[in-house]
């Protein structure tokens, strides 16, 4: 399974990528929407994990752009808000939705579930 992590918090995505590596999951990361699009042009990912709120392109807009490039990709939204409104939007727009801070084992299980779906 190949995963792309997109979040403007660099320390979060780099650490998550490293932790997924310990669990045998190949993960690339970026902090910017335009770089996420460039990476997706270069190679397909099975699951893309997106922060809902990011500068320039937010997660929902970026998801639409990435879907145009690779319609087969699956998406998980991450958010630091955890409000009812975010949950409603996140659940409606992505294949799965997780609130930060996340439990790595739940995260891995969710990745595998979304990948298989």
């Amino acid at each position, binding site marked *: 399974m190949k995963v792309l992590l997109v979040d403007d918090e660099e320390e979060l995505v780099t650490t998550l990528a490293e932790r997924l590596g310990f669990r045998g999951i190949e993960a690339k990361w970026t902090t910017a929407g335009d770089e996420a699009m460039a990476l997706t042009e270069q190679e397909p990912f099975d699951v893309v994990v997106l922060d809902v709120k990011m500068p320039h392109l937010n997660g929902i807009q970026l998801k639409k752009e990435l879907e145009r490039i690779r319609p087969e990709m699956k998406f998980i939204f991450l958010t630091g*808000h955890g409000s009812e409104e975010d949950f409603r939007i996140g659940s409606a727009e992505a294949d799965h939705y997780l609130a930060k801070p996340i439990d790595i084992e739940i995260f891995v299980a969710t990745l595998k579930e979304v990948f298989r779906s």
Partner: protein
Amino acid sequence: MTTTDSDRWKAVSAESLRFFGAMSAAVSHEIRNKLAVINEKAGLVQDIAFAVKSGRAVDPDRLEMQAGKIIDQVRQANRVVGVLNRLAHSVDAPRTRIDLADVIGLVTELYGRKAAQGEITISAVVSANPVSVITSPFLLAALIGGCVDAAIPKVDDSAVLTINAEAVADGATIRLQNLAGIEDSDVELGGQDSGARAMLEMLGGRLVADGRRGELVLEIRNCVGPDGGRQL
């Protein structure tokens, strides 16, 4: 208290609650992001420890680096909590003499993330001579916050919203600079009946748009209390 005063207080109370809620939500979001990083960093240290127990060679510098980053995130989270604490305590005194550098600094920190989302920075220019005014610290912070909200979409190509203050007779002038296409409608602050406008009136203030200089100009007069007229 007249009906008009009562209506104004209601509008100010509602706007105060909205501002405090918005700031609390922004700060709690930032704290949650820091906690998320701390959570992952601590988890990575566990992963590394587990790998060592399993007989894998791990560079000790890797552990030391992660521990250092956890400490750094805790320090950042503590600073964010401090900002919320300063806002919370700004309601302690309904009216007091305040250094505008303090309140502008507070608003700058509160709006830092929102500004970053809009890919701009906010720069508070501190004068060599302290500029102070007698007013409500919380209401002034909320009012400057309303001005920052109005200014962020108008910041010019410099991508820097500059805020500075200067003393004038009986008060101070706060300028939000580097704005493009600023016009009178930008000083409506939600309309004539809005809570922000009521705050402006209550603080004896005036807000004008200077399109030629690209500035929002907020003039605040000293609130001298019940015996002196304008009261809070």
